[in-house]
């Protein structure tokens, strides 16, 4: 069972590496969206550092969302998704490998790049670290919840916008706790409570989201 999981993970990563532009799109989207805000709001460091937690988190949210369409679409088109449905391994287990690959490809680069953008927003050092921690704990939730939306809208017309409508309201707790952690450390408070809650939401979605995604895939593909 582990062998299948690793094979699927390796396959998805390999496919992503063969089409590097997909990874770059997500990353550039994140960079461009977060660069637009200083242009719209003005370059005062005090203002920028006060909006930085929210802006960076919203940008990460949107960047994670635009790549959701690719999560199952290619597998659906070439029929390998049906093979996964028929496979003897539990579908939720296989799906979790795909979600993990999606996070590695779309979530992790954003986490690694975020401190650089945070620096441009004049975030202090401590807050930069908290930003990385919060994104590290929170972005897996985005991939996990997003997978449910991607599975539900598989092959539906206008699925790109539909995913946004379905998934963004469910992202709100993650946004609140993630941005709250960074803001708390900016104000000299402990970010621990926020990070704990963020981790709790992550763990909850880690347990439930693959099951829901598997159910959604069965509905969409049958």
């Amino acid at each position, binding site marked *: 069972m582990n062998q299948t999981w690793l094979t699927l993970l390796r396959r998805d990563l390999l496919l992503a590496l063969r089409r590097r532009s997909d990874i770059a799109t997500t990353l550039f989207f994140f960079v461009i969206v977060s660069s637009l805000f200083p242009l719209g709001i003005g370059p005062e460091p005090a203002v920028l550092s006060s909006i930085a937690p929210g802006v960076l988190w919203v940008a990460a949210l949107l960047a994670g969302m635009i790549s959701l369409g690719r999560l199952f679409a290619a597998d659906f088109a070439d029929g390998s998704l049906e093979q996964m449905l028929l496979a003897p391994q539990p579908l939720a287990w296989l799906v979790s490998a795909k979600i993990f690959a999606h996070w590695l490809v779309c979530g992790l680069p954003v986490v690694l790049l975020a401190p650089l953008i945070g620096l441009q927003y004049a975030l202090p050092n401590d807050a930069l670290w908290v930003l990385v921690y919060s994104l590290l704990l929170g972005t897996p939730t985005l991939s996990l919840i997003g997978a*449910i939306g991607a599975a*539900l809208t598989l092959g*539906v017309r206008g699925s790109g916008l*539909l995913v946004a409508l379905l998934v963004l*309201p*469910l992202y*709100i*707790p993650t946004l*609140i706790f993630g941005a709250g952690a960074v803001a708390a450390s900016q104000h000299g408070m402990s970010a621990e409570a926020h990070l704990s809650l963020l981790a709790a939401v992550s763990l909850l979605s880690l347990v439930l989201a693959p099951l829901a995604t598997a159910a959604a895939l069965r*509905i969409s593909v049958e």
Partner: protein
Amino acid sequence: MHMNWFKYSSPQTFYPLAGKMIPWFFWAASLLCAVGLYVSFAIAPTDFQQGEAYRIIFVHVPAAWMSMFIYLVMAGWAAMGLALNARLSAMMAQALAPTGAMFTLLALVTGSLWGKPMWGTWWVWDARLTSELILLFLYLGFMALQSSIDDPRRADRAGALLALVGVVNVPIIYFSVKWWNTLHQGSTINMGVAPKMAATMLLGMLLMALAFWMYSVAVALMRVRCIMLERERSSDWVKALSIKGGK
């Protein structure tokens, strides 16, 4: 005596039953609404702090209650539809969604109409207002998903799954928003402590809530009848119905 519990779980038998039930619920709704409005506007005393403007809560609070209650009922029907694979349950969930969204919107609009004279602003990012807004998004997502899938069976099941995911998330969203709000307490408005309400005010609110409830049932039944006809248009009982003239 043997009773068939599933007799009314088929559209063919439920269609005439729903048709018979609708007038009763409509009459109950109109009656309760008339009495409720009378209590709210004629009997309930003027609030010494808020004056007459407070009377909008007789619409606002019941609408907010119904908006949350209908989401739960909808998710309940959705779960039943998934578990028992019953067509009618999924149709009920679909029929309830627009009414729920309407009440959510009504609660938001009346809330902001009340907020203007009371707080001097149309909108504050209060925990309750914000979570009500998110509830509206959840309703819209449910309806958008259902309407964009052509195959009705798939639309039913996808919508049901989304409603269940939403129900799991609603408490998490509510508490996160509440906590976010207490951390960002910038304004001077304090909604936490509700003033003691006169008994007649509570009565008016309960009557209006019951009226809204009856109205929701009636409208959902009407809508589900339309959905049944549309979905089963090629079946014999609908054809027989159209020959008889729709009764």
